[in-house]
């Protein structure tokens, strides 16, 4: 069974199309009322409560609203279906709901609906995708008025607004009572600016603008009336569809494909930031092998000096990507490390290796599941200082298994954290005690990260994250690599804002002519 490499196919297709396209001016007419978007991965559900895919988040921005949302400009968590909120102590959050919010079936949003939604998520048997996370901090939700609810937290949790914004769209009371989850998908009753009018799992999703959407919302009055998401797994085919007018927008386009295609007259390229970061984790704890060289901090520091992150970022990742010094994205709250920064210095790397007892270097397996070209560049940089890294490039599901079994001496991976502009999104998953991604074995660091996750006071959080990031840098548990950039290809005439967090807000899309 042969699987096509989408990028290779994309580049091949681009080259062939170039000659034709330069002499042709056939492209999709601006369609004032509709937008067709290609999805590479099939969406298994339109119900965000049951979706773990990134595409699900893009769709949920259209069909659902939570109490809060992520402001696309500031990346702060601000009220959406909530009119206001107030922290009453560290473990109680009172929220006042807007009184003009309607579900797609025309019924008004009430406190009962909010309580029902969170009770459903808290119920283990409901099987919602983010239930385990919400249950980690939320104890119960109480109705304290027709449009007022009180959230009682188990522990102080500063990311409560984030979870409510990203993971919990509101549902009408009784939504799941009489019908199965799959029945809900067919007639999703959300409160977002678009309603689902057609869903064929794995094939396409059709949306129509919801005319009774509340006007006070920043998402109100989207310009495009109809949206259609088509599942097209192959990027070469997506390009052909874009050129023939079958689709208007391609998401997550690799930079080399975007570079080639942008020269075609019928395609426009949009580029923006992405909160996703790339990094190398080193087995400092010696889980994979008690004698691994990575137990020695000098070796880990040597790797940090040996890899030319700046060049890899500039020439391979490209776009708005930045080389990183700390285990976080610069756009994230708390990403203010002051600890050691490792400049590219192969001489210093060799000296550190010699000092650690490896004057002739050593060999190890570097595991990776994406960005093979970057992985190969890393291997080359390491070879210069005498380290022989064998790139073990595998599929993600295999990678996850080996990593979770803690059988990797080092791995090159990436993490998006749902586009969350807060350092907790990355440090929490990678450095708390119970995560299999934590190869540091540093209990003190884990305690600091956990304390930051349980602290409401922003100043104190900043300080705790500074301590944690400095500790990670000082001990060189990671080789922080780069942030990513996002590339979109779109039909001429389509206006779309560049998202700072890499999550496109399609309700902002409009045709300019």
């Amino acid at each position: 069974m042969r699987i096509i490499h989408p990028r290779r196919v994309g580049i091949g297709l681009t080259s062939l199309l170039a000659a034709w396209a330069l002499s042709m001016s056939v492209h999709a007419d601006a369609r004032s009322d509709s937008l067709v978007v290609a999805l590479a991965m099939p969406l298994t559900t339109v119900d965000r409560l049951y979706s773990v895919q990134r595409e699900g988040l893009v769709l949920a921005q259209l069909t659902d609203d939570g109490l809060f949302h992520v402001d696309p400009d500031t990346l702060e968590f601000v009220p959406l279906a909530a009119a206001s909120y107030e922290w009453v102590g560290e473990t109680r959050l009172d929220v006042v709901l807007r009184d003009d919010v309607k579900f797609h079936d025309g019924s008004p949003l009430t406190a009962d609906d909010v309580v029902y939604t969170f009770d459903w998520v808290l119920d283990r048997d409901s099987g919602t995708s983010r239930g385990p996370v919400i249950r980690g901090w939320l104890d119960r939700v109480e109705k304290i008025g027709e449009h007022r609810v009180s959230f009682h937290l188990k522990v102080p949790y500063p990311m409560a607004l984030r979870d409510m914004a990203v993971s919990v769209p509101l549902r009408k009371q009784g939504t799941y009572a009489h019908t199965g989850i799959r029945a809900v998908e067919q007639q999703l009753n959300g409160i977002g600016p678009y309603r689902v009018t057609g869903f064929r799992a794995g094939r396409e999703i059709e949306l129509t603008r919801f005319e009774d959407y509340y006007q006070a919302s920043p998402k109100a009055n989207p310009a495009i009336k109809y949206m259609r998401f088509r599942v097209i797994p192959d990027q070469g085919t997506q390009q052909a569809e874009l050129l023939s007018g079958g689709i208007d927008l391609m998401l997550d386009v690799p930079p080399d494909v975007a570079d080639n295609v942008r020269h075609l007259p019928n395609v426009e390229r949009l580029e923006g930031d992405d909160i996703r970061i790339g990094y190398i984790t080193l087995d400092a704890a010696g889980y994979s092998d008690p004698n691994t060289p990575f137990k020695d901090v000098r070796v880990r520091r040597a790797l940090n000096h040996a890899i030319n992150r700046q060049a890899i970022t500039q020439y391979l990742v490209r776009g708005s990507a930045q080389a990183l010094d700390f285990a976080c994205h610069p756009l994230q709250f708390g990403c203010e490390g002051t600890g050691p920064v490792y400049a590219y210095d192969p001489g210093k790397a060799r000296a550190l290796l010699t000092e650690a007892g490896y004057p002739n270097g050593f060999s190890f397996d570097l595991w990776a599941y994406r960005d093979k070209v970057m992985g190969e560049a890393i291997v080359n940089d390491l070879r210069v200082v005498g380290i022989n890294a064998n790139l073990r490039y595998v599929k993600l599901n295999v990678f996850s298994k080996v990593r979770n079994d803690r059988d990797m001496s080092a791995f090159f991976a990436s993490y998006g954290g749902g586009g969350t502009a807060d350092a907790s999104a990355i440090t929490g998953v990678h450095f708390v005690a119970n995560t299999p991604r934590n190869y540091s074995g540093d209990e003190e660091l884990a305690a600091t990260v956990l304390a930051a996750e349980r602290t409401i006071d922003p100043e104190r959080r900043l300080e705790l994250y500074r301590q944690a990031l400095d500790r990670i840098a000082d001990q060189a548990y990671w080789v922080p690599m780069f942030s990513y950039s996002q590339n979109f290809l779109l039909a001429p005439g389509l206006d779309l804002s560049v998202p700072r967090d890499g999550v496109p807000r399609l309700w902002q899309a409009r045709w300019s002519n």
Partner: protein
Amino acid sequence: MASYILRRGLLALLVALVVSFGTFALFYFATDPAQTIAGEDAPPEMVEEIRQEYGFDRPVSVQYVAWLGGVFQGDFGESYFWKQPVGELIREHAGVTIILALSSLMVTILIALPLGIGAALKPNSWVDRFALSTAVSAQAIPNFWLGLMVIILLAVMFPIFPVSGDATWRHYVLPALVLGASSVPAVMRLTRTGLLEVLGADYIRTARAKGFMGYQLIFRQALRNALLPVVSVLAVQLGHKLGGSVVTESVFSMNGLGRLAVESIFNSDIPTVQSLILIFVLTFVLLTLAADLINAWLDPRIRMG
């Protein structure tokens, strides 16, 4: 004949079970389905909860027996990824693959048989050379490349057919052409070789002596015997197309079983992968059996033997 069919049927089942257990075990040793279901960015508590909920912490053999027990009762389990019964999922996707496989087989027959016959009737002529170069080209061009070429030519530059999808018959034309082309070399060469061999046989010389000529000689006397190995190859090719049209289905964005298999593999959707493998193996073995039976029907010597 009945015992022969029974024996082959049991063999097919045995092969399917061995392959199925091998796949099951490989999946559990090589991947972490809980992490895949939760998503790569999921926090550890979520992964752990899923592991317990789905019973991934049980021994592999226990999980396999539980799944197999369901299969024998007609229950293929529920897809981890799609969250719906696997049987339903397969039914939804099978139509596309069956139509694509049969139409591409038709393309193969329509191209390969005339070429093979022409090449055999006029060996070493321009017809033969043309047939040979067509076969070599079809063999050398990778499926995905040919797919993209026909998309560019017949869907983008000259928009006669849609680029991708599977909603109407027009969506099947290009993929059938691409998938069918991949089988042309084998069928064409076998037809040519078989017919050449038969045309030199004694009974054909006798038939010629009796006055059989032209159409009657070729189609009624020679081709019937020459096509015996072709039938077997076509059955095998149909098996390939039913289970292995992954590339074509991906390039043309068709929601068939091949694409379902790939998505399921990448998402560690073990019940779906298991069921598909079982179906692919059984289909393949049954098609081979069917080819044997057709051969026996076409050639009385096989029946007697």
